[in-house]
């Protein structure tokens, strides 16, 4: 499968992160893992994109961070949705779905000049 253009990915990353947290709190690596497993392993979202995005979403109040102990009792940072973030995840999911369907239809349809 050919690589997706980075621009296309960046536009949906926020939504995907929010979606990843809908099931409960996750740490950064967990989100990455979820993305690789659920969306596509070959998407290869880089840490250099993911962490700034997480921090930005946190600064804007969509998600909030908390420190907890990791499985081997080290400090780990967990993210969870704020109520605002939950709301946004819901509304943006349906908006994106409607948009994506149109994009797919456009891709499927024969283009006549």
């Amino acid at each position, binding site marked *: 499968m050919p690589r997706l253009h980075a621009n296309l990915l960046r536009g949906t990353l926020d939504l995907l992160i929010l979606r990843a947290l809908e099931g409960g709190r996750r*740490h950064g*690596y967990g989100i990455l893992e979820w993305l690789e497993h659920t969306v596509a392993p070959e998407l290869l979202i880089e*840490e*250099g994109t993911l962490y700034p995005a997480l921090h930005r979403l946190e*600064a804007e109040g969509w998600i909030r961070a908390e420190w907890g102990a990791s499985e081997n009792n080290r400090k780990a*940072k967990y993210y969870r949705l704020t109520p605002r973030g939950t709301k946004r995840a819901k509304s943006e999911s349906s908006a994106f779905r409607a948009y994506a369907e149109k994009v797919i239809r456009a891709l499927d349809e024969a283009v006549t000049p």
Partner: protein
Amino acid sequence: MSPSKGSRARGESVDEREWVRKRRDEIRAELEDHLERRTRALEAQGRSPADAHSEAVRRMGDRERIEYDCLRIAQQRRVRQRRQWLLEDALRDVRFALRGFRRRPGLATGVVLTAALAIGAATSVFSVVNGVLLRPLPYPGSSQLYSVYTRYLPATGYDFPYFSLSGPEIQDYQAMTRVMAGVAAYTLSSANLAADGIEPERVAAVRAEWRLFDVLGAKPGLGRTFVEEDGAPGAPCVAVLSDGLWRERFGADTGIVHRDIRYDGQLCRVVGVMPAEFVFPDERFRVWTPFVLDPSSPFWERRSHPFAAVAKLRDGATLAMAEAELDGLRSQWSAEYPDHYALGHFIVLRSFRLDLVEDTRPALLVLLGSVGVVLLIVVVNVAGLILSSAESRRHELAMRAALGVERWRLLRLLLTEALVLGLFGGGLGIIASTWMLRAILASYPGTFPLSSGIMLDGRVLAFAVGLSILTGLLSGAVPAVQASRVKSSEALRSMGRGLTSHRGSVRARQGLVVAQCALALVLSLGAALLARSYGSLRAVDLGFDPEGVLTFTVAIPPGSHAEPETARAIFERLEERLAAIPGVDAAGAFSDLPLQSAGAMDDFTIEGRPQPGPGQQMWNAGYQMATPGALRALGLRLVEGRWFDENDLASAPLVAVINQSTKRQYFRGEPVLGLRLRYSDEPIRWITIVGVVADTRSAGVQSPPAPAIYAALAQAPRAAYEGRVMTFAVRFRDDLAGQVPLVRAAVAEVDPALPLFGLRTMATIRTEAVGQTRFALTLMTGFAGIALFLVALGVYGVLAHSVHLRSGEIGLRLTLGAERTEVLRMMLRQGMTLTAVGIALGFTVAVVLRRASAGFIFGVSLFDPASLLLAMGTLLAASCLACAVPAFRASRVDPVVTLRSSG
């Protein structure tokens, strides 16, 4: 809601670097955790630990870059949030303050009103100061304009710091200066103005060299100003009119340009109209005509000083450069004309603006100072009010402290309260200042110089707002610091025990009252000294009797009657006609009226005495002409000999009357009747002294009398003084009211085309002569009144508070057999002690400041005991009155009630 909830632990005290380090550590830990998890995941896929780790590191890429990006996001967020918090906190404090005011409306109203009073007064005074002393003049580069004067040091026999110039002096200066862009000579006079369809009017006029407008950099509103040809000898007469004259007399008709008017009887073409804001040299002057410095004129000599001049510095030149240049001129003159300049007579410069405002400046500065003192008193007063409110909120504040509100937040809260009050007061004060300004303008004698600049402009507004903030901050500072010092433990201790007072705050309030008394004493003392000075000014022996005298001036220019004899004959007829008005006691005319001008100062010589040589004091006196009726009309006192009579005609021997100063100064009191004197411009005309009159205050009430010599108008012994402008004095036996039409009719009967102008009573002239002092006195009395009122409030507040606090103790005293009068006395003593300390302190301050008002003090010592007693007495009385109510209340304390409640 309490404001403490909003106090977030935002770590402002933590060092910025510390914060960054912490954030970076967090980000690192997060990324470290990420690497570890990835490594473990890879190991689970069967990679070796070393391989797994390096793969995890490889996948993460540029770690420092990630750290940096995340840190930037955190920092931006922090800045945004801080800004928002700051605003929210400020708004919350303001809302809290406003809520507090609703709970204590009395306090808030009191503070706002007193602050409004003081800020309003200060703003109105500053509006005047700004317009008169600060705003630029309506010319470009007006700060570069200087008036040019000659200065005579006393060694010359004269003592004139700023005297007019002679023609040759101006010409020399114009020829040599490299520092001045231009020097223009002018003279001030008045002229009879007439035109088709308008009534003849006497207007104040400037005759100036054609370059005047260029030197000023002033452009006309209509037509043109002067050009060089206008200044050529024999050029046709042209005139430039002021905007005011153009509007009032010519209905703002733009067709006025190129029309002819009659200017002192001579046809003159109007070439331009100046814009409304143009003023030169002050608002009174309404016509400008060109003249030429004429070396062939009989007055063209270094001794004759008829001209004023204004000069403008070149761009980049400084006053110091101009003065250095004048030093050169001075030594050149001393070398060329040693007789004339060796003694200390030279050209000096003075800022043109200072020139315009010099009469008003001292009064304005004294007022600005006084209003500043009032403002200080208000600050102290407001501080006291806030302190007492903080006092009663002590418990609340202590509770807050106990709940962990930081001290600086309490401080900020209290300061915000004071600031909000100050701004409210300032807003109200700005509104009030427009009224106060009107009152100031109304109490000023005449109009302020540069009065068109007196308005509420940006600078005045900024001043008022700044003052409001300052008032708020200053008055909030003491109570805020005091109150924020409460200890949380105190709140718990005082729980349920009602109010306990804090010794520190009582002392602070007493200190504030003492400060108020001191400041009020300074003001009252100033007002009392001014009042006494005004009294002495009114009591000065003017040398004549101003009551019941109407005065006006009549001018007969050569344009209407070429021969001076004809003009003088008209004055004689006028005098006869005026004297014939029923109810008139006497009528006469002077070339210069006392209090207004001493006349031209001229040198004379006495027959049979050697003339003073170079370097010796010249014999010098004001030269005046007068008519036979003038002595009685003005009420001059004849000391010796006789005054002029009908027989002193041009054909009869020339006669003069001298004043006592002349006799004392030049004749050393020897008999003078029959001695003869003469002037250098009429070397063969000897004038015989026939009488001596009492001195008059010629140059103003405060200026000591100067030597004067009177000549008979009918004889006009010096050709240079034709006597074409004479001021009449008409003494009425009874009331002056209703007499003006009779006087006008009499003048019209003699010549209907003669305008009479400056119609005023002598009493008015005298009032105006002391106008500056009266103005300063009126306002300062007002300020002192405000100060006393505020002090009374302050004393009342402290004492009432003290009675409240000590009611238990008083109750106990009464139970133990103290007399009620004793209690009364005790409380009064407390108030009076504070006042007395304040008075002592204020007196010290007054001694330090006494120089400030020295210019206004006339005829009394700066330590005038009567003024001091008056000021102290008023202050003590006000404070005693303020003490009386709480003291009386203290003596009425019911011991049973107070003992029960405090037990």
